[in-house]
């Protein structure tokens, strides 16, 4: 009891000190927000647009008068697809730049790298990408999908008659924590559906791998043993050589469909998609979704890309993580306005139950407890023009399960952060 009081007192003292030292000076000035996305290296292909869409949101918010009457000021850093550098940059953002919130990360390994920093310094991170779950931090809001909002429905679809009734499975991924964990969950899920061990083949390639000849040949060989589907968790620019090889070797989606969890409109930009028609992706947003919110958002993005002369502005594309980043920053703004402060703990409390009209044409809701969004799931097939045609979707938004029931021991874990935060020593 004494110990707890002591901790409380320390928290109070620390936060008072924080208010005392920085609060006055910053009350009138702009609110700094950090943007922590790789702008170079293997992940730049995916992450650069997230930086841009975050800046677009900041511009929009500032044009409408800012937050609490103060402008937002973006502090953009480039962690260069280098995982330890993510932690360094995060520390720099929180301690030197004193940002109120950070929007950033794509790969789970980068998130795992910055997590101790955010917990230690009691920072606030908005993470906009689908991931493997198995994590729930008080300091992070996950605006991408948990496995039950992406991976599981996609596999279920491929098992169905509509999806081709796959019996054998190749789980192919980049070698790091997200694909490994997702595949562990999928393996357990497939087994629960009666799929044999010998009908599952797990394969990994390093980051930046560019020679997919052997992998594609192996997939073909595996597919001679029965109706096969490939679940790809390849991340970053390796996807371009992978899909090129698929096309060149003539592996058609009608024979062996490949469903990807980290490939969207942006990643396919440089690929000739004509031989890839019918391969799938599972997301919570596609650019091709019809609706007034999406139309307006796409128009806004096209105008922004043109005005800022962004690379690829001649063919502006939107994708799921961009939508998630967009939702994240707007929900943060709403929460700050509700809490009337940028104080981390108060904003976290105010985030519960926030809603936002998302471009995917549903009203996104932040779960009152588990820091994840309720999301609708879409499965799309690649079309000749590089867009996705939605072939399946859930009836409405579904609640995230960060602790997948297919991982042993997760049934005992609570569906909310346990509130334990390591305080700066």
């Amino acid at each position, binding site marked *: 009891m004494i110990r707890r009081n002591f901790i409380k007192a320390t928290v109070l003292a620390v936060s008072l000190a924080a208010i005392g030292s920085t609060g006055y000076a910053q009350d009138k000035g702009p609110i700094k927000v950090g943007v922590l996305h790789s*702008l*170079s*290296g*293997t992940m*730049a*292909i995916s992450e*650069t647009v997230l930086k841009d869409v975050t800046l677009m949101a900041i511009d929009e918010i500032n044009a409408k008068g800012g937050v609490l009457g103060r402008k937002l000021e973006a502090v953009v850093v*480039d962690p260069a697809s280098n995982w330890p550098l993510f932690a360094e940059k995060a520390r720099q953002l929180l301690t030197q730049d004193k940002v109120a919130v950070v929007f950033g990360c794509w790969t789970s390994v980068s998130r795992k790298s910055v997590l101790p920093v955010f917990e230690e310094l009691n920072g606030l991170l908005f993470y906009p990408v689908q991931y493997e779950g198995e994590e729930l931090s008080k300091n992070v809001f996950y605006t991408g999908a948990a496995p039950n909002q992406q991976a599981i429905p996609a596999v279920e679809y491929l098992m169905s*008659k*509509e*999806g*081709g009734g796959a019996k054998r499975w190749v789980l192919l991924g980049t*070698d790091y924590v997200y694909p490994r964990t997702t595949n562990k969950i999928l393996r357990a899920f497939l087994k629960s559906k009666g799929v044999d061990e010998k009908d599952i083949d797990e*394969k*990994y*390639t*390093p980051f*930046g*791998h*560019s*020679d997919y*000849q*052997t*992998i594609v*040949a*192996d997939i*073909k*060989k595996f597919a*001679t*043993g*029965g*109706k096969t589907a490939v679940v790809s968790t390849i991340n970053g*620019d390796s996807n*371009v*050589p992978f899909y*090129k*090889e698929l*096309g*060149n*070797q*003539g592996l058609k*989606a*009608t*024979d062996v*469909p490949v469903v990807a969890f980290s490939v969207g409109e942006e990643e396919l*930009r*440089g690929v*000739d998609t004509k*031989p890839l*028609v*019918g391969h*799938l992706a599972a997301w919570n947003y596609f650019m091709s979704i019809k609706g007034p919110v999406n139309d307006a958002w796409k128009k806004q993005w096209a105008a922004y890309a043109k005005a800022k002369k962004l*690379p690829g502005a001649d063919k502006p594309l939107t994708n799921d993580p961009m939508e998630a980043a967009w939702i994240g920053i707007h929900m943060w703004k709403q929460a700050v306005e509700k809490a009337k402060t940028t104080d981390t703990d108060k904003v976290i409390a105010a985030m519960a139950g926030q809603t936002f009209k998302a471009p995917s044409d549903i009203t996104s809701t932040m779960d009152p407890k588990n820091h994840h969004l309720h999301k609708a799931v879409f499965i799309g*097939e690649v*079309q*000749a023009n590089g867009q996705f*045609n939605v*072939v399946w979707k859930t009836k409405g938004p579904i609640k995230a399960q960060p602790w997948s029931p297919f991982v042993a021991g997760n049934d005992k874990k609570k569906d909310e952060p346990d509130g334990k935060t390591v305080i700066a020593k």
Partner: protein
Amino acid sequence: MRILLIALLLFASRAFALEVANVEKLAFGESDEQVAAIAALVASGDPQAAAVLQALADGELQVAGKRVLIVKGEEATDAVTGAKVAPLPEEREGVVANNRLRRELAGALAGLKLTSPQREARLAAVKELAGGADPAMLPLVKRALEKEADPTIKPMLELIAATMELKDGSKEARIAAVRMLGGSSNSNTKLLLLGVLEKRKDGSFAEPDEEIRREAQASLRAVEGRLAWGERAGILFTSISLGSILLLAAMGLAITYGLMGVINMAHGELIMVGAYTTYAVQNLFREHAPDAFDWYLACAVPASFMVSAAVGMLLERLVIRWLYGRALETLLATWGISLVLIQTVRTIFGAQNVQVENPAFMSGGVEALMGVVLPWSRIVIVVFAAAVLVGIWLLLTRTRLGLFVRGVTQNRAMASCVGVPTARVDTWAFGLGSGIAGLAGCALSQIGNVGPDLGQAYIVDSFMVVVLGGVGQLAGTVYAALGLGFANKLLEAWQGAVLAKIVVLVFIIMFIQKRPQGLFALKGRAVET
């Protein structure tokens, strides 16, 4: 559905006008209805039905309100009547097929084309159906078989008919079918044969007749044997392909490091410069000569050689020539240069990868053996690597510059004494090595990503090849590149890509420990000192 189809085939032999209900189902229905509609349209035998199905497959089927249209460019026809529709309605929406529908469509269209008067169309149709056709199409196939006289198409048609009768034909027909499958070169036949041999959950066989099962076993062994050969050929080809890439990346280094002794850490960046030059040339072609786009490589190859060579010679003149004989300083200086080059490219072209498009003739592949497709892009690069190798060999052994380079390498002082301008030879040789790195960049841009970090991925591999092959030897580089290609691909097929990389690195470290001079070493006094 099948029953429906057969029934329709029997009763709908007269050409009906295209049924509105079917077309509407195809355009507006759920996928089960769409599949049924396809079957019904095939059965109608109407040429307009074929047009509608083809339009759906090509993404040309659209709906405007309740009307179903076939839209080709700016012209539209009514899908039901075939009449012209003008003007084009404003509010149109495409009917998009999903995988299941596309599968059904491909089969249906192939079935319709079986009786086409053109031989090519029939051949394509037969090839499509050989991958496992819907048994409901048997009457169609039989009808086509009666008319078919072509010596290539007829046996394939028989095979298709055989696979269709695999489940419900007479015993003799099924045995014949199983035997025939054993001779097929389509990789889907394995699936069909496995189906015959399938065991039910209670342990009994799905196929009760033992004789048929025995035949199926034999056929399966034959098919698997051929697939195994295909697999071996596939590994052989991928190894050569990887080897040729390593060779291209390392050949320039074999000259700058191998012959001249400059530890050139900027070698990877010279490759990158070549790749970016290719990108720039591609953009020029796209802007100014879009018709000749397929031939941009003919310009990009010399351009990337010259740009990289120029950059290399500039480096040599400005930095490296002051550091000859001081290995450590060269290493640090060239590493610094590599960072400068990366940043320069980042500033000019941006940090993101740029897209280099393959010319049309380099996409797709050719089926060499059962289940083995050799992509054209890889074939072109293997040939290109061989050509570059021959070029360098001729240059080094048949020209005056080559003679000078070899002379300076073997004994600089003596070469200088007999009047060889050693400093100029150094510059030319460094330029040559850099230019070849540029060629490698041009080739790599066709299969991999082009970004500022491109060179970093190849510098380690290049040094591995040169050191393993033996410094100062072109032949050693060739053997080492192909050897590493094979080792990598065999290990990858066996243990996966991640472990293969580690094992190869460990092997090279051990090898260099045992034999520091590499596979092939120069002998002679100059080297010993």
